[in-house]
């Protein structure tokens, strides 16, 4: 009895004494010296460890950009693989500092405990099917069984598409990504549904021959896949927002990892403010003034990141499409760095 009592009192004492520190996320990350990001359980091109266990991908590098801005080290990041239903609680409870993990920006999510930052990828929800079935559009999919992973918006999309076109789709729901993908390739389902970027990733890395599969849109609506932070820390929201903005703005200014140093003496006031040669921007966020310069120096601009991870230089071979700059007909639009 006594022992139990002692343990309990000790636990209570600890709990009571340890002050609930009202620390900001920025202070916490700086103190820890590392940024902790939620990541997927393996979607190559967006977030997955390579053969040596080094995390790569568009979402992963978005996180590294924040690490550069705050800690000046793109490798000062730990990635925590999270399943679909764990990712939002993990963010809310402070287990991770930010969540760059192909998260669709929806009203319900935004209103319910998390803040969405700046979209780093625009994509429609798509179906992937074997080409030999000869189906190329949603309207022909009547009676198809569809592998779905829970923990995503796609479950609802399957239902909406099926009802709207009167297709009688048969969803087979799995609790995790791996199981859903495996079931699709084993032939358990006719189609796999998720956002088209992830589908391209699955096709490039998991199919025995990627040419045997076709991907087509499930709806005409675009989704904004957006890194998220938790409610209640506006400064941190701003830091993540502007770290992502820095990537996009750099591309709009024509700054790349290679040529950025040559712009240091630029006369353009916007570029000077962007690089921190004219001070003020970084300070406002609680960072050093050259944070945008350091991000581009370490990781390149958004275009470079895109091509490296999911575009021409990657197995996924995705085109920029809607993810091009607004000047090229895309949706990527830099805000004013002033």
């Amino acid at each position, binding site marked *: 009895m006594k022992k139990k009592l002692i343990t309990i009192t000790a636990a209570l004492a600890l709990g009571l004494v340890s002050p609930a520190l009202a620390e900001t996320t920025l202070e916490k990350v700086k103190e820890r010296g590392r940024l902790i990001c939620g990541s997927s359980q393996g979607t190559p091109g967006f977030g997955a460890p390579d053969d040596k266990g080094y995390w790569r991908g568009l979402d992963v590098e978005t996180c590294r950009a924040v690490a550069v801005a705050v800690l000046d080290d793109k490798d000062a990041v730990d990635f925590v693989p999270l399943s*679909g239903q764990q990712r939002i609680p993990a963010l809310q409870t402070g287990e991770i500092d930010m969540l760059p993990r192909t998260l669709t920006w929806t009203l319900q999510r935004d209103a319910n405990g998390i803040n969405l930052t700046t979209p780093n990828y625009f994509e429609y929800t798509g179906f992937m099917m074997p080409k030999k079935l000869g189906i190329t559009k949603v309207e022909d999919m009547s009676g198809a069984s569809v592998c779905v992973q829970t923990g995503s918006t796609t479950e609802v999309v399957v239902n909406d598409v099926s009802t709207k076109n009167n297709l009688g789709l048969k969803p087979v729901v799995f*609790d995790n990504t791996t*199981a859903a993908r495996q079931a699709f390739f084993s032939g358990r389902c006719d189609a796999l549904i998720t956002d088209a970027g992830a589908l391209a990733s699955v096709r490039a890395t998991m199919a025995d021959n990627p040419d045997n599969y076709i991907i087509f849109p499930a709806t005409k609506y675009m989704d904004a896949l957006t890194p998220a932070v938790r409610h209640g820390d506006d400064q941190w929201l701003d830091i993540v927002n502007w770290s992502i903005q820095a990537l996009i703005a750099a591309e709009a200014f024509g700054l790349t990892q290679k040529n950025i140093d040559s712009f240091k003496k630029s006369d353009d006031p916007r570029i000077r403010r962007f690089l921190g040669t004219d001070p003020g921007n970084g300070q406002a966020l609680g960072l050093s003034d050259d944070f945008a310069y350091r991000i581009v120096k370490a990781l390149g601009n958004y275009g470079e990141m895109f091509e490296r991870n999911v575009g021409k230089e990657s197995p996924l071979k995705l085109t920029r499409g809607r993810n091009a700059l607004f000047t090229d007909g895309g949706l990527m639009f830099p805000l004013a760095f002033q």
Partner: protein
Amino acid sequence: MISALWYSARVRAWAAQIALLAGLGLFLWMIVGNTVENLTARGIRTGFDYLWRPARFPISESIIRYDASDSFLWAYVAGLANTLWLSLLSIVFATILGLFVCLARLSHHPVLSYMTGVYVTVLRNVPLIVQLLFWYAIATSVFPAPRAALNPLPGLFLSIRGVYAPALIVEPGGWFFLIASAALFIVALAVGLWSARRARSFGAPILLAALAFWAATNVVLYVALGRPLKLEMPELNGLNFSGGTNLSPEFAAIIIGLTIYTSAFIGEIIRGGIEAIDKGQWEGARALGLSERVVMFKVILPQALRIIVPPMTSQYLSTVKNTTLAVAVGYPELGLVVNTVINQTGQAIESILIMLCVFLSISLSVSLFMNWYNARVALVVR
């Protein structure tokens, strides 16, 4: 005075107990406080009003009618119905299989007995979830695509999409026919058996005659009611079979896995019960010249039942709890539905609480029922 109080064992015991209670109360109060603080700080919505909103997500298979336009509450109910259905089937099948396992184990047949020994040992020492994934891997790798489905019997199709069999369509008058037929069967059987026993040597022919009479009335009734039953054949329609009844690979994997796994435990429980019966019972029954089968089924098993019931109950309860592993192979029981709801609504606390309460009430009600049953059985002891 005070020191006397300090050394009084009773006072000390009570003081310690009150301290313990206070400690626990404080602990709970802190947890609730933390939770409330966390929820408000993170802006997480709480409450059960979401239960009445439309769920909008699909459930791949459900034994009760569920549609994506139904409410979240109904989604839970559909998940629970699947859980109970799965539990019921696997308990029934596992008990039957377990009885066979036990009998084979106890048989004097050396090879069979040894083989069942290996069966039991292997199954009990490998985690259930590994077995489920294994069966699911088999179910989705051995069978062909729907277009090349195996067709061993007319109307029966085996493919990677599961088993499709003809469905029985009951038209108006069909239920009347089914009930009447069943009632007639019972009557025919009873009359047949009764008269067969009286007319010893002609027993078998009389029984056959009774059954033939039953079959004949069936045909007459069926035609008279306008052929009220129809078979709906599954047909390959575009990508998949449509019509008929379907056993999905997910359900097949979980039901096979759960049945086989549980049968190994049930077999051992029954064996334990039988072995606990006094040897004198065997010897006495044999001395009376009863056959081995009569000894087993009329003397030993009824007595063993009383010993078997308590461990069997806890085994049945484990089986109900084990159905939650169906998550791993994608069968939508309560756990998977809860997972989905958490993701759709973000209301993790409410969802998990509902799941825990459901399982707790199943466990507690079975325990209470078993206690009552045990008390009854104990009273009958002579």
